[in-house]
């Protein structure tokens, strides 16, 4: 390095808070140095912490307070004036014999089924594509770009196109199923009624699988080539290599990926909202739409907040249990 070898941190041209350059300061570098170093990380974090407070922490606290109040449209301009209702909002939300609780439970179960299939299929498509594109061949770069298109398209533009394809009278899906293949007696409804859950899962998988593909592709790059070479010398075929090397090596990626996919899919609002509008068909009434509906359409914010808090608690428990089991599995594998 250069001639600055004594104590470099004293002589900062632009250092934070170092104003004095007199000889007296040079004799006591340690103390101000340490204080500055101790404060610097906090100074760097300050904007993020302030914003976190503003956009996450305070709204969450207000949301919790709201859930204990009878907050209807009359109190939107003065929510502090809404009467306390104790646990009423929660009691109503989990009273599964009454209409509100029954609808919430139904919506929750629909969301669970939807999430299971949407995440499962997105993962399956992602892992298949990632493995098949691992080796280089002609057209690989092109396919990789093509597979990422659903990820890059704005949600509303893509989902609105699917909504068009699922139209009863002028959509592609019925044209193919009814007119061209003759599989159905008459054109079916896809965006209302019992079929809507299928439409929702298909659109969600279409939109979600490229993220799985991207993450798994990144994970595959970290597997050392030597493992495959050694295996092939030992006589393992490509299918065996996939089963014995690729899949086990992807375990840490999969653990993160499945959790992230689960949370995103479970909380997804954009897809059902663009596909169905403000109120989804009963069969595809996802929880986030349901809460939106009970908050902004029927204007019951207190009840909506209680449902949000319940949803949050559920997600926290699932995540904690998931992390507990996966991290235990990982430790076991290391030992």
């Amino acid at each position, binding site marked *: 390095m250069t001639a600055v070898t004594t104590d*470099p941190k004293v002589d900062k041209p632009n250092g934070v808070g170092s104003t004095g350059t007199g000889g007296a300061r040079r004799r006591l570098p340690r103390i101000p140095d340490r204080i500055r170093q*101790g404060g610097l990380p906090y100074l760097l974090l300050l904007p993020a912490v302030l914003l976190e407070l503003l956009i996450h922490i305070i709204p969450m606290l207000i949301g919790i307070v709201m859930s204990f109040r009878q907050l209807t449209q009359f109190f939107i301009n*003065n929510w502090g004036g809404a009467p306390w209702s104790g646990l009423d909002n929660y009691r109503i939300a989990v009273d599964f014999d009454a209409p509100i609780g029954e609808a919430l439970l139904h919506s929750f179960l629909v969301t669970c089924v939807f999430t299971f299939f949407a995440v499962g299929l997105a993962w399956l498509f992602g892992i298949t594509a990632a493995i098949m594109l691992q080796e280089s061949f002609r057209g690989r770069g092109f396919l990789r770009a093509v597979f990422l298109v659903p990820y890059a398209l704005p949600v509303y533009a893509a989902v609105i*196109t699917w909504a068009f394809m699922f139209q009863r009278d*002028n959509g592609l899906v019925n044209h193919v199923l009814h007119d061209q293949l003759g599989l159905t007696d008459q054109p079916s409804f896809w965006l209302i009624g019992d079929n809507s859950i299928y439409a929702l899962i298909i659109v969600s998988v279409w939109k979600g699988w490229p993220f799985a593909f991207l993450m798994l592709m990144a994970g595959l*790059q970290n597997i050392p080539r030597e493992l495959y070479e050694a295996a092939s010398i030992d006589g393992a075929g490509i299918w065996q290599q996939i089963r014995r090397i690729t899949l086990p090596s992807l375990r840490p990626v999969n653990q993160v990926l499945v959790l992230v996919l689960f949370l995103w899919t479970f909380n997804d609002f954009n897809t059902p909202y663009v596909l169905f509008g403000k109120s989804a068909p009963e069969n595809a009434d996802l929880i986030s739409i349901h809460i939106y509906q009970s908050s902004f359409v029927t204007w019951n914010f207190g009840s909506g907040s209680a449902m949000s808090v319940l949803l949050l608690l559920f997600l926290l428990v699932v995540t904690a249990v998931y992390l507990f089991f996966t991290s235990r599995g990982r430790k076991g594998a290391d030992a």
Partner: protein
Amino acid sequence: MAAPQSFLWTRRIVLTLLAGFVLLPVYVMVSSSLKPLQDVSGKFQWIPRNLTIQPYFDIWDTVPLAKYFVNSLIVAGAATALSVTIAVFSAYAVSRYTFRGKRAFTVTVLSTQMFPGILFLLPLFLIFVNIGNSTGLALYGSRGGLILTYLTFSLPFSIWMLIGYFDSIPKDLDEAALVDGCGPIRALFRVVVPAAVPGIVAVSVYAFMTAWGEVLFASVMTNDATRTLAVGLQGYATQNDVYWNQVMAASLVVSVPVVAGFLLLQRYLVAGLTAGAVK
């Protein structure tokens, strides 16, 4: 390593099917945008019979698409710039220093990522309305208010990704700069940021794309003047008719900038994911 025929054939079939699945809506979008209204209102045609580019002119008049475009650009751009800038500072602090409260900070940031947007929407809506009533500051319905709500998802993600990316840059680099007499802030901007350009690009692209496609906050927090594309596209559906050809043309127009940008920069995104998420 020679792959057996069975694998090659499976690969060909599977990849063709997947590409077909992915591109089907893209084909519908492009072909329908070139059809006259009576053709998109009738039975679907795989091959357009009467080609027209008229929808591409009409989209600007049916709804004020240009205005929505500008709104989306401002909101998504500002949310991206703000979250990435702030994330650079905090990620640097977390990646390079040990301090009390570090774990609490990262855990908080990480966990807010998993919370549903609806959880923050209700209180933020009330906060904005009440601030407006008591101070006259019009946050509700304003672009500034919308930008602030977009930080609820773009800030945690940016911090999370950048911590991973900064961790992957050797500490020797900026330590050498410190030894050479740089202050920590100078070391950040002279050494760490230039070395992290791919990661910062990846995070920015991702943040921009998410904000560009956001629907929930945009549908609640905007009014006629500040409406973004996400809400504005619904304007092509009238009481009597849905102008499907215009919907498809407008969808294509709003998609082209982000898809092009993304495909150009996707290499960086994979690199960023490798460093940030997959560890």
